[in-house]
């Protein structure tokens, strides 16, 4: 698209965007930097300091990270799958149907947005204990699979979709669920991918509830491994903490790079005029 902006203003914007980007990236860059330096160099920002991978070795040996990866991947996939299914169904109801109790129901969903599950861990622990799920991966995920955040987000997305496409599919004999699956979901792909990334990031990094509800290595996620290096009585060792952080987030960075194209695919209204 050609726009009214002059090349100069364009350039200025590019510079601005990049500067902001570097600023935003700085903490991660710092983490990367600290993770490959000795402890005494890490906080001195001495650019000539020698590199080392000892931190990674130390951290990797400090916890069964391989198992934690597996658990975390199972966990976030499970949560995401649940959230997408439950969220899509619920959002569809809110976005496209007019039904008795709609606003009450929506308000009840929003309550979850306002309460972080962290303060409900006591009650939720009891529930899990009653379900005999303590110390299992499903127990970590269950409280999160109905996400008000996701329902609200998808409701907004579905509501902005051209009703014409829904109508066209209805005429062609598509059932209500069929339309959800064949029209709404594919059209919401940018949002779904964005949501997926955010959800995965969130649960990948969630700590307190997984810590409380699990006891064994077989069920625990990565962040428990990371936690050993975070703010302890003896102070923070930024190099180990950074190395642990890098180990934890590296897959997320890769996932982001892989998926980012998916939410920049514009073809929204081309079929309608």
């Amino acid at each position, binding site marked *: 698209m050609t726009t009214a902006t002059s090349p100069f203003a364009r350039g200025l914007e590019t510079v601005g965007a990049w500067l902001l980007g570097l600023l935003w990236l700085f903490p991660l860059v710092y983490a990367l930097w600290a993770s490959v330096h000795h402890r005494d160099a890490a906080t001195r920002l001495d650019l000539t300091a020698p590199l080392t991978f000892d931190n990674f070795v130390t951290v990797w040996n400090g916890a069964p990270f391989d198992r934690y990866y597996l658990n975390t991947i199972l966990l976030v996939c499970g949560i995401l799958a649940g959230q997408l299914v439950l969220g899509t169904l619920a959002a569809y109801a809110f976005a496209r149907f007019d039904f008795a109790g709609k606003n009450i129901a929506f308000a009840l969903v929003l309550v979850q947005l306002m309460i972080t599950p962290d303060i409900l861990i006591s009650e939720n622990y009891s529930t899990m204990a009653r379900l005999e799920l303590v110390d299992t991966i499903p127990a970590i995920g269950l409280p999160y699979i109905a996400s008000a955040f996701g329902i609200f987000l998808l409701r907004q997305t579905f509501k902005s979709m051209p009703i*014409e496409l829904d109508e066209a599919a209805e005429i062609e004999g598509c059932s209500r669920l069929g339309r959800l699956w064949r029209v709404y979901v594919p059209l919401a792909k940018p949002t779904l991918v964005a949501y997926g990334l955010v959800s995965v990031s969130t649960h990948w990094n969630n700590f307190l509830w997984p810590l409380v509800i699990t006891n064994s290595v077989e069920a625990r996620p990565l962040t428990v491994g990371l936690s050993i290096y975070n703010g302890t009585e003896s102070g923070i060792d930024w190099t180990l903490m950074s190395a642990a952080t890098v180990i934890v987030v590296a897959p997320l960075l890769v996932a982001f790079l892989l998926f980012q194209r998916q939410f920049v695919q514009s073809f929204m209204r081309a079929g*309608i005029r």
Partner: protein
Amino acid sequence: MSDVELRAVVKTFPDPGAGETTVLHGIDIRAGSGQFVVLLGPSGCGKSTSLRIVAGLESATSGDVLIEGVRVNEVPAAKRHIAMVFQNYALYPHLTVLENIVFGLRVRKVPKAEREAKARDAAERVGLEAYLKRRPSQLSGGQRQRTALARALVSDAKVVLMDEPLSNLDARLRHQMRVELRELQRSLGLTVLYVTHDQVEAMTMADHVVVMRDGNVAQAASPVDLYTDPADAGVAAFIGSPPMNLLPGRLDEAGLRLAGDGAGLPIPTAVATHGLADGRLTVGVRPESLALTDDAAAPLAGTVRLSEILGAETLLTVDLAPGEQVVARLPGIVRVADGAHVRLAVAHDDVRYFDHTSGRRLAGADDDPAPLERTGNAR
């Protein structure tokens, strides 16, 4: 058996500010099984809304929708087995042309081979074979419209609704599609409700034309009847391209006086007997009933305001008096200078008379037997 009927259907929309606006005031439309019914009417008169009510996309505020004689008001659109070409296409932007076309077939679980075959056939009919892999955003306007058309063609529905399905196609393609559609409709026995603004489509394709106006049915008849026997001045003025000229006329001793300095027309017997209180009426003359003449006794005379050469014919807009114009449609290319003074002959039989206030056709005029009709080579 797949006849469709709207009975006394009223449709009201909420309107910002105005509270509500009623766009259909109790219309009755019927399309018999296997019939091709065209809805015609000015922009905004409720054509699309009527189709959408038949399809079940909009619910009638009151009145009944019947398909095969059964009231279907409560049946959801997905269960009505109707195909539709939307005025705004409504193509799925995330699917290719092929996928768009087979969408309904996939929904109905038609086996893959079969649906591909059907889709290819339909694509060929509309000339899109080369574009099957494209997304709608990569198509031209006409190609999008044809995709929408093909999508309706592959469905097995016996009732097909089409909302200006050819409006963005060129004349040649449109001619071709017209023939194609009509043949398909006949061979499959489809019941078609078809909205168009194209007079030619209306006249050539329809078994039956429903002329709508302001949310009412103004007249429903066969195309020829509509042309020759318009129920009122409004319908008369709407049919034909360019439409019928409507001129104010006055009966006096000498005859029927029209605007301008022409000689006027002889009083038609039917009208004379009709007893018009003040002697005023509206006279309808089709452009093609007018011809240039040198006869000083010609009923109409005026100065040429505009001459438009269409190739096969020429349209002459003639100012009769201030604010009074007639359009004459003359065969071939006719060059007349703007501002020239011309006289126009009127084919008497082709004139229609209407009440000057209500616009109703004057009853007596019906006496003349099918007056526009003739046989043979007139030219």
